[in-house]
């Protein structure tokens, strides 16, 4: 049983028109970058992995996470965490509640709160638990968003243009933080981007779509 994220002969089509094909294994701690102009179906690939492919698309191939076939599993049982270009923090929940949302069930209240506080401390946001996410800066929100995914203990991390809304300086910082955390937690990372800097920073295999 191979650890990591495996896309076995995945092919996605829309209305009979083939969009993307990918056959790869991403080892724990590695990053696979998928590049290409917008509209070639990069995000569709991630939707296939999260189990939220719109009905207009058809797909073949299997998705395996740590050797387990998750192709037919419902999205919430796939352990595939995802970050989009917007932080998508739940606007009705406080920063702390956003983090607790992803935290696995179990543990006492105090215990859960402690884990949330600790996660915030790790990204220099100690004491932010009661804040309204809408009052945070873009960089702060990106960090909260990252910690929310990590607290849910995913088996893989998907990045859908995750850094494209941040300005250049912030972008490098957040990107570095994400990759560093993913390596530490030995997460396979599948990143979709149109930005060459992202690909270079990932220092992994790069697959380019729509280039032929």
């Amino acid at each position, binding site marked *: 049983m191979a650890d990591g994220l495996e896309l076995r002969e995945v092919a996605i089509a829309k209305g009979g028109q083939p969009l993307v094909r990918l056959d790869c294994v991403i080892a724990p701690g590695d990053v696979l970058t998928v590049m290409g102009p917008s509209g070639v179906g990069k995000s569709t690939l991630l939707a296939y992995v999260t*189990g939220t492919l719109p009905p207009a698309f058809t797909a073949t191939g299997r998705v395996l996470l740590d050797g387990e076939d998750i192709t037919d599993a*419902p999205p919430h049982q796939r352990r595939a965490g995802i970050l989009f270009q917007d932080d998508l923090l739940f606007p009705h929940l406080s920063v702390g509640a956003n983090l607790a949302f992803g935290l696995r069930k179990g543990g006492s209240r105090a215990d859960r709160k402690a884990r949330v506080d600790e996660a915030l401390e790790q990204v220099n946001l100690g004491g932010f638990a009661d804040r309204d996410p*809408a009052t945070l800066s873009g960089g702060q929100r990106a960090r909260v968003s990252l910690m929310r995914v990590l607290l849910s203990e995913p088996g893989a991390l998907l990045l859908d243009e995750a850094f494209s809304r941040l300005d250049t300086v912030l972008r490098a910082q957040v990107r570095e933080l994400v990759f560093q955390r993913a390596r530490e937690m030995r997460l396979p990372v599948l990143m979709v981007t149109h930005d060459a800097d992202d690909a270079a920073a990932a220092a992994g295999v790069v697959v380019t779509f729509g280039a032929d």
Partner: protein
Amino acid sequence: MDEIAFPGRARRSDMRRRFLPVLPALTLVVMLGPVIAGLYGTVLPAFGHLPAAGLSGPTLDPWRALFDWPGIGRAVALSVTVGMGATVTALTLVMLLTAGWSGTRAFKALERLLSPLLSVPHAAAAFGLAFLIAPSGWIARATSPWLTGWDRPPDLLIVQDGWGLSMMAGLIIKEVPFLLLMTLAALGQSDASRAALVSQSLGYGRVTGWLKAVFPRVYRQIRLPVYVTLAYAMSVVDVALILGPNTPAPLSVQIVRWMSDPEIAARLVGAAGALLQLGLVVAALLVWWMGERVVARLGCLWVESGARGRLDRPVAAVGLGGGALSAAAVLLGLAVLTVWSFAAYWGFPDVLPDGLTFANWERHLRGVVAAATDTVLIASPVVAVAVVLTIGCLEAEYRHGLTLSQRGMWLLYLPLLIPQVAFLPGFQIFLLNMGADTGHLPVMVAHLVFVLPYVFLSLADPFRAWDARVGTVAAALGASPNRVLWGVRLPMLLRPVLTAMAVGIAVSVGQYLPTLLIGGGRVATLTTEAVALSSGGDRRAIGVFGLIQTAAALVPFALALAIPAIVWRNRKGLRHG
């Protein structure tokens, strides 16, 4: 590459899977069942077949009796002229108003008045208008005797005039806000502001440019609501009772009279009349549909002519004037209802009563409380069921891709397009044949038919506009579909959900005919009580009931604004959502 349909979405095997996909079908049954049963229950008696009364057909006697009724010609003509007149006028006003003023400060001001104007029940608006324009109304008082020379109310038939003009006016002032709301929604979806800008940069006047470049796309979107307006205006009962002519009455009112007649034979005539009313509406819709084609052809010629529009200013002025006048009529109407409800002695031509008193309120308090109780008792479960079914349908659509097609939209509008007076009498007969009693439960079933489409139409857009990526993120964090719905989606959509509930309550509160016919006289809501007062002419009582009726529809809208503002007071991200 051999492809199989991707099964990930379809194979989610939680319990909901079996329950949720059934909801759209159930919703259609709840919404259309009474309509179909009602039409069935109308057709048979219209041909003399009524087993419950020992009559078996088929016979054409009811039709002969219908066409022998001396008022039939006038009644039919009134239905057509009032319906067409009100719809054409309201639509024209809204289009000119939007063409000439959208984006301006004056337009924004009218937009803000929209929700309150919409929620005022038809009956209350009609009473208010009557109290304004009657010979002893506020307008006559304000201009007498210094302008008119009247010392006593003139002997003029203004309200309930034989041409149905005041009835038409009463419908226009309520349909303008409805069509304006629909137009605003359509504007957002049709890239209107940029098209208007482009046509202006090509040298077109504001109104001409809008009519040529934007109107066609907007009209496509508001077509069904326009049809609803036409069908409604042709067959309305409560507004006709208050503002419509008496001798003869419009067809819809006469049908209700026949249906309330203890003579069984009269009911057969009523059923025939109901079918005639349905035929009239269908014919009018067909004529309208053909008219659309004619207008489209003429419009194309007009566009090709390249005329830049020289009459823009006066035309825009008419639009704004008409819109403002119609809003003012509703608001001043409410004001005059308020004054009457507190009025002590109020002689003509005084603009205000001699004194204000709570006596009217005290006298009617018990009646108001009883009617308000019935109103709430019916509206609450109806709206609760409607909201649950609506959310269920929309969630089934989200989870299983069961999208409502264009044909589905027609089904949604069907209960609003078929005149109430065409199928409710039949539904009443159907219930009688089934041995079902009249009373609260059947009334609720009947209300649901009309509440459901409006709740659905109100909630569908915001529900679908919700960013599905938020759902993906939540699911990727391990949240089940139910947790995503209850823990994320609905809290984020609190305001639209509450607004949809308020819409539903306003619709239920305003229902006259279903309450009257299906309730069999045993259910008395604020609306039936208020309309029943119209024949007596006790203006103080009408003021009291009209105001409370308006409040019953208006307060939920205020709560739908206030509750999210309080609950999410510390959540900036939801303040404007």
